[in-house]
């Protein structure tokens, strides 16, 4: 297993150890707004356990992915929608 994984968050390289959540990598990239609500308010993770859907981002082109339930993989491309 690799010691470190390289992923892109909004095009910015982020290096994380295996076992890191995509949500955590997004936070490490300095992004606080993961998506915007239906009335365009900034939102970030609330429940951290797959319930609230406030952490949804686009992962490898798959829109609406829960970043709190997804572990980082080498080469992953993450796009926030905030």
């Amino acid at each position, binding site marked *: 297993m690799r010691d470190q994984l390289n992923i892109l968050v909004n095009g910015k390289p982020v290096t*994380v*150890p295996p*076992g*890191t*959540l995509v*949500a*955590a*990598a997004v*936070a*490490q990239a300095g992004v*606080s*707004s*993961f998506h915007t*609500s*239906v*009335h365009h*308010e*900034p*939102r*970030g*993770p*609330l*429940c*951290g*356990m*797959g*319930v*609230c*859907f*406030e952490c*949804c981002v686009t992962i490898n082109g798959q829109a*609406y992915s829960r970043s*709190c*339930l*997804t*572990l980082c993989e080498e080469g992953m491309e993450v796009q926030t929608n905030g």
Partner: protein
Amino acid sequence: MANRRLQLEVTVVGAGPAGIAAACMAADQGRKVAVVDNSPWLGGQIWRASAHPGRGLAGHWINRLRQSGVSVFSNATAFAAPAPHVLLAETPDGVLELNWNKLILATGGRERFLPFPGWTLPGVMGPGGLYAMVKSGWPIAGKRVVVAGSGPLLLAAADGLKQAGARVSLVAEQADWGRVVRFGINLWQHPGKLLQGAGVKARLLGVPYRCGCWPVKAEGAAQVERVTLTNGSRSWTEDCDYLACGFHLVPNTELACLLGCAMAEGFVQVNEFQATSVPDVFCAGEPTGIGGADRALVEGQVAGLAAAGAWDQAQTLFGRRAAWQSFRAGLDQAFALRPELRELAAPDTVVCRCEDVRFADLKRCESLRDARLHTRCGMGSCQGRTCSAAVRFLFGWENDSIRPPLFPVRLASLTGESSPSVNHNLETPQPSNK
């Protein structure tokens, strides 16, 4: 997308303490067992195996599960029960069709969130949720954190966050000091819990634990920067990078409701063998009452043995379970929500975050059904999982309508590509007449 069909004697939903214990016990009895869980790890929220594999009780049970011969499906979200004895779960590779003889629901609980001005700002999170993500890499070192809300989870989360390098400035418990002390005194019946609590308290030295106070407002530009708290007579403001705020736990009962299990006061009703009102469906852990991992472990074991028909062995655990039921009752009493929390939301405070439904819009409604029809409250992507506990507390509304799919799923999962029977069975009522 590939679809798989499995024939199982026992299917367990949820791989937390209750689900793992249930699966292990049923497998010990020679049953063919599968566990599905929607997360990538084993252990549920409380154990989260990826962070500390092999430690203590969690390690013991997770290793036991791995050696049990149980088929474990992580990243598998149960979303529909299209026919009796059939459960569908979505995985990244397609849909699992689980045909079961006995089903054990071990779906755990979630934090209860109550709306107050600013609670939708990024950086306001559940204490358990924030701590869980910190265990999986969320950067917290040096960050200022205020922990608020209610329940023993506040202390556990504050302890974990502090150990991870956070500067926890305050733990604000809404319950009054007297109630919390009485709960603490009653812990003598559970020496393990008492020691656990004492350890947490010792490590939290220097962090004030204040009872009888609660948050009234969070503020910040792009994310939370400060929180105003009150003790009912005096208000003050604390600067913070994160506000970890949750009001104890509520059970995940959506699947039980979908299956038609009888409920009582928001919890799944079970008999002494953890059997629900629906034949061949058992339930263990938080869905039957918020009582923590130790209680869930015992209930899970009883459910697993009962599902395997080992009634005598199940009975030997009744005594241990009874002790944890009193612990559960103590929790309910100590951390009951104070009525002042109903007054926190302002007219323009969002209550349903998915659909941005505000408190004033809901005040005009008479029921959750009415609110759905007029405001879309509870009809967004979380399907009311976040706001249903809030509107239950604020307005007394019960969520009486649970429909498939239980979670948002891919269209291919609903149409059952390459699986005509799934397609046929999913012709269930659509939510258009909500």
